[in-house]
């Protein structure tokens, strides 16, 4: 190892030592300088950035979801309001052990196995910061019990806030819609942090969705200082939320609830319209869903029950249910006849039907000679067959459209199916065939190609009763509706016929039980199975093949205030199923106490009010599905 020529002495070693010590000292100084420079760089050049990071560590900004604007009826009574509420959500990203957390929550909150299952399923699909609702409406004790255990339950977010409440429950389901937590796509679209704030909900359907902007309000914010473990040290400031603006409707809350309850166990729809303004007083489709339970996040089982129900509670039948209107169109057809010069006193002999070529079109009875009002009163098909054959249906269709049939209304975004008022041009367009006399005969009694929704029937009746071209609406407005282009005396004849329907005709059993106030109406029975197949849908056939019962009406006869249409699906007949319902809610408008008394008697026989019946149906359904029955309906063609 020794290099030649280099002598090692104590002195040379000391020199080496000194040199190398200086070298090391210099290196150390260099490191020290680098450290000082690095620190200066971090704390001066990057100061702003790190200050911000430090603040975002320290300060936790939580949005306070705004209280949603109330939805009130025409008298200021709340149809949807907010209740103070303790709720708890799970933030998927922050949960460490999902199973353990769900288990603990289930224990602390005493959740049922169904609810725990639902939560587990919801958590499986959940991602990121999108809150998954666990429970709402907690008691103070449960809320407190949960709050003290928070340090061991990361991702659990209990909150004191407000939640949407619908005091009349299912009665307003299809009218108002419901609210719910924004889904992932909605958040992706707007990136609004409010959408993933626990407790915040947006309108998901109906008016709640259409008027979202107005009802939403502005969020408040709470600034708190938090430790790394999420413990709140102190509050730094609160900005209160700005509640959404209230939304006033034309709806009469009392009537809305009464109608829904009066529909009882039937499946159907009813619409009541103010004959002076066109404002909708009641808008009901039953059975319905309880928007309260939808807004809390409906359970899978409850949803399964609703989607399997043959009465389709999830469909808004008032605007999306299409029905052959049957004889309810006869007063309208009468106006069309008068417009086309038919003498109202001219009589047509009814021998129990009408012969067209080699076919005989049935009437419901042998009415003998009938004039126009009597034809309405007795719902004589023969009279209207004769008139339609003479005039052709195109002329009647024009009046039908003027009355609002086949029309899609501008109605707060409510999804409508507007059906068909056929004429020769329509048939040529659609089927490439000419219009026949047979088509006219079928159409005039509201069968064949004619198909309408209950809202249109109510509008027709309101226009007929008021003589004005009323437009249905839910938000009050000052518009004055123009008068219909028909002579008042012509309308009076149709009205007279309808008055006779109730006073002595097909709906005579549904006279209003009131002194001095009479109702005018028209019954209708619409066949579900093909008309002319010869098979009537009477009581002897399965429910879903039975005839629909319809009734349109207005009251009082002399000075109409309210017009309505009622459709009872598979109710067998208009006078039997629909007219009594109309009688009761019309009574409610003039004497609520009397109407309520008779409703309570009926409900006693049906097994309770809507909420009670829905609860017991759910209990039965649950018992059955736990008993091993498949939760999904078997396909219809599975039978051999």
């Amino acid at each position, binding site marked *: *190892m*020794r*290099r030649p020529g280099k002598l*090692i*002495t*104590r002195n040379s*070693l*000391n020199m*080496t*030592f*000194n040199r*190398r*010590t200086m070298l*090391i*000292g210099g290196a*150390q*100084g260099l*490191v*020290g300088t*680098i*450290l*000082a420079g*690095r*620190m*200066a760089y*971090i*704390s*001066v050049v*990057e*100061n702003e*950035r*790190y*200050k911000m*990071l*430090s*603040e975002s*560590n*320290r300060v936790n900004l939580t949005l306070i979801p705004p209280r949603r604007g109330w939805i009130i009826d025409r008298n200021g009574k709340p149809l949807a309001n907010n209740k103070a509420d303790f709720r708890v959500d799970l933030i998927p990203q922050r949960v460490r052990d999902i199973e353990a957390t769900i288990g603990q929550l289930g224990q602390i909150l005493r959740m049922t196995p169904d609810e725990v299952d639902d939560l587990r399923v919801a958590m499986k699909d959940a991602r990121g910061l999108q809150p998954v609702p666990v429970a709402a409406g907690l008691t103070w004790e449960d809320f407190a019990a949960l709050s003290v255990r928070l340090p061991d339950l990361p991702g659990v977010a209990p909150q004191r806030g407000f939640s949407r409440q619908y005091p009349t429950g299912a009665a307003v389901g299809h009218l108002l819609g419901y609210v719910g937590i924004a889904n992932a796509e909605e958040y992706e679209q707007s990136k609004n942090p409010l959408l993933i704030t626990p407790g915040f909900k947006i309108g998901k359907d109906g008016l709640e969705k259409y008027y979202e902007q107005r009802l939403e309000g502005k969020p408040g914010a709470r600034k708190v*200082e*938090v*430790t*790394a*473990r999420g413990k709140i*040290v102190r509050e730094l400031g609160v900005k209160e939320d700005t509640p959404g603006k209230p939304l006033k409707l034309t709806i009469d809350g009392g009537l809305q609830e009464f109608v829904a309850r009066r529909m009882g166990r039937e499946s159907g729809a009813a619409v009541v319209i103010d004959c002076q303004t066109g404002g909708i007083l009641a808008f009901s489709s039953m059975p319905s869903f309880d928007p309260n339970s939808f807004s809390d996040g409906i359970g899978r089982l409850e949803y399964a029950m609703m989607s399997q129900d043959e009465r389709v509670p999830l469909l808004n039948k008032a605007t999306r249910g299409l029905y052959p209107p049957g004889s309810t169109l006869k007063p309208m057809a009468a106006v069309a006849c008068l417009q086309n010069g038919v003498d109202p006193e001219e009589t047509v002999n009814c021998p129990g039907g009408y012969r067209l070529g080699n076919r005989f079109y049935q009437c419901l009875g042998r009415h003998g000679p009938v004039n126009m009002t009597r034809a309405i009163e007795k719902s004589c098909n023969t009279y209207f067959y004769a008139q339609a054959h003479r005039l052709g249906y195109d002329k009647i269709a024009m009046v039908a459209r003027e009355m609002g049939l086949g029309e899609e209304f501008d109605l707060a975004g409510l999804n409508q199916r507007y059906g068909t008022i056929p004429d020769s041009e329509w048939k040529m367009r659609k089927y490439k065939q000419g219009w026949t006399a047979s088509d006219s005969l079928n159409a005039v009694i509201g069968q064949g190609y004619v198909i309408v929704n209950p809202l249109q029937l109510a509008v027709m009746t309101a226009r007929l009763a008021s003589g004005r071209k009323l437009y249905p609406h839910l938000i009050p407005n000052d518009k004055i509706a123009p008068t219909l282009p028909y002579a008042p005396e012509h309308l009076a004849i149709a009205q007279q016929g309808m008055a006779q329907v109730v006073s002595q005709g097909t709906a005579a059993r549904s006279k209003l039980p009131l002194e001095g106030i009479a109702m005018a109406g028209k019954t209708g029975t619409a066949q579900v199975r093909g008309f002319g197949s010869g098979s009537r849908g009477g009581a002897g056939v399965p429910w879903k093949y039975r005839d629909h019962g319809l009734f349109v009406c207005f009251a009082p006869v002399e000075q109409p205030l309210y017009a309505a249409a009622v459709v009872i699906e598979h109710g067998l007949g208009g006078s039997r199923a629909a007219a009594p319902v109309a009688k009761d809610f019309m009574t409610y408008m003039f004497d609520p106490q009397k109407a309520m008394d008779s409703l309570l008697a009926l409900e006693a026989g049906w097994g309770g009010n809507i909420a009670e019946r829905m609860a017991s149906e759910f209990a039965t359904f649950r018992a059955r599905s736990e008993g091993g029955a498949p939760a999904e309906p078997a396909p219809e063609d599975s039978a051999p």
Partner: protein
Amino acid sequence: MLSFVPRPVADLPWQIIAITVTIAAFGVIVLYSAAGGSISPWAGIHALRFGVFLVMALVIRMFSENFVKLGTFPAYALFAVLLLLVELAGAVKGGSQRWIELGGFRLQPSEFMKPLVVLAIARFYEMIPIGQARSWSAIWPPLVLIGVPWFLVMTQPDLGTSIAVMSGGVTVMFLAGVPLRLFIGAGLAGAAFVPFAFFFLLREYQQNRVLIFLDPESDPLGTGYHISQSKIAIGSGGIGGKGYLQGSQSHLDYLPEGHTDFVFATMAEEWGLVGGLFVIGLFALLLRWATVVSLNAPSRFGKLAGGGLTMVIFFYIAINLLMVMGLAPVVGIPLPFLSYGGSSMMTIMICIGLLMGIERNTRESGSSAGRVIS
């Protein structure tokens, strides 16, 4: 010197005492804040420990050089055996073990090994004939003296301490005149060895620490959290700091280990760049003093030991500061006089005491003529 001060008192190394007391006192102030404005649990004990260890250092100062030289190899042997025992205990119990329980006192042999390796190698070079200083026989024994404790500590596993043990010993070899080309060769070989060591010698958590160091943002809530939060604390302090007791990073627990390994970040958050330069400046004074002591030492043993001990102290300071500023991986090395913790403070004060002893020898031998720097 003022004449009325008694000679033994006047002869005390007041300069270094002042420096260490200042840093340690600042440490007490920082630890008071780290505890949320409380003497307990750290600040009080820190002050007490420093007092005890300062006395210990002054006692060590009085050891004669011969006494130290005589004690070096037996002490080295003793602690090598203890290190082996710790290792065996760890193997038996499963998991890593770094200390021996001695009646409530935790004895961590690896800490003693840092100055002992330096002393042993300095003693070795002092013993061999001057002519052999650059020969092979002057190289392999120190490598064994370093290698044995290095291996035992490395397998504990304690990456930081093992490198510290090595760095002190290698420094003495360097100062003793081992040819430069050997260090350059070893450096190149080491660089080639790094990938091998990374994949085969490091445990998974150690590998992760290195990877996270290279890219802290890749894992902001895991291992990189330490580095990120430390940088946030230092960076948010700015020039003047957030004010005493106002550090949110430390007080709200965002900064992990804010009283031990990351105490510098705790300090910098509240005292800013000014506080940081103050601390770095004091350390610079300390190391300058230590370097001057070793340069002025009259004996070869004193020179070599002084240089090695200086490196041991420097190693603590540099690695810790590089770590908290995000320039080195998280290796768990505390900052002298500021970090709470007994064993590291003891090691540092042993080094300081030995350096004080070397300085005393220099003074008493009166060979001030040989002083390079005064």
